[in-house]
């Protein structure tokens, strides 16, 4: 019985509208709901014959036509809701697939390209935005321009007389620039490495023999040594009695290392750039 009524295929709308309707199984009403044979949909919409629904509706207007059963029709059971309309999504579909006769494989490339290009464009924009955020955070860690501006000093060497040591402030620390005499140079070059606590040749500590550039921070506990003092004619730290020679090397006292030599360069014969 059910099969005979409901097997309608794409003509189901017609067969259902004219045949007996079955109430939902949960309904406790014993009398089956029936529709008058002449019942029409409440609103008739004039639409293009593009879907099985619209085709079926068009066929139902022919009198005495209906397919009740057959090998190619479904066994779908519809209950009393014959006024439910199948929605028509034509407005949302791509133009190339609207026609029932269109070959959708042919338009696959252009349809897929649109979707993928949209995704790729969004992703590229998102990557650009993400890069901007990361860049802002990373550059916030680098030194600012005012810090970089005071990170180097330039010293005119002609202002420093021979045999004198002048102190400058560089990056918050004292910087010693010593104009060494010929006697001091030959004395430091003659010191054997075996006499030194932190063995270092004088040649590797200076770029030009006349000019010694060292940080004025004692390597023991960070006091500022006094120039031209101590047993070795170089520097003497008053805090705990470390003696440095005229090459800034530790010779006596508690300090473990030689005075630090910063990075410097002679930009011209009269100028040294430290930092």
């Amino acid at each position: 019985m059910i099969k005979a009524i409901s097997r309608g295929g794409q003509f189901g709308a017609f067969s259902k509208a004219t045949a007996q309707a079955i109430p939902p199984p949960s309904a406790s009403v014993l009398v089956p709901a029936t529709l008058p044979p002449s019942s029409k949909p409440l609103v008739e919409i004039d639409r293009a014959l593009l879907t099985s629904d619209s085709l079926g509706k068009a066929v139902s207007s022919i009198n005495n036509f209906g397919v009740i059963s057959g090998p190619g029709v479904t066994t779908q059971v519809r209950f009393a809701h014959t006024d439910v309309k199948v929605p028509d999504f034509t407005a949302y579909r791509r133009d190339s697939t609207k026609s029932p006769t269109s070959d959708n494989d042919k338009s696959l490339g252009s349809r897929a390209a649109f979707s993928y290009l949209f995704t790729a464009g969004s992703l590229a924009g998102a990557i650009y935005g993400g890069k901007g955020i990361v860049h802002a955070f990373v550059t916030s860690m680098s030194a600012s321009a005012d810090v970089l501006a005071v990170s180097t000093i330039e010293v005119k060497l002609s202002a420093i007389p021979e045999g004198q040591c002048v102190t400058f402030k560089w990056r918050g620390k004292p910087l010693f620039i010593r104009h060494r005499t010929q006697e001091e140079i030959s004395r430091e070059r003659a010191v054997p490495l075996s006499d030194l606590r932190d063995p270092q040749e004088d040649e590797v500590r200076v770029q030009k023999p006349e000019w010694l550039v060292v940080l004025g921070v004692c390597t023991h506990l960070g006091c500022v040594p006094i120039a031209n003092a101590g047993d070795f004619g170089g520097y003497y730290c008053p805090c705990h009695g470390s003696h440095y020679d005229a090459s800034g090397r530790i010779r006596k006292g508690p300090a473990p290392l030689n005075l630090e030599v910063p990075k410097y360069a002679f930009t011209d014969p009269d100028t040294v750039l430290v930092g």
Partner: protein
Amino acid sequence: MGLAGTIYQTLFRRSSTAAITIVIGAYATERIIDEGSTLLWKNYNKGKLWDDIKHKYEK
């Protein structure tokens, strides 16, 4: 098949080429937006920039 179809077949059909396309596209987007906006800004502020008055102060 047209241009769009060719783009799909060559670039987006495989995930590997799609990923490479997106990365290169992001770099191209960055260059175009950054350089383009700088160019626009320089054009708008023509005559007020250091590059325009530098010759008065530098030898």
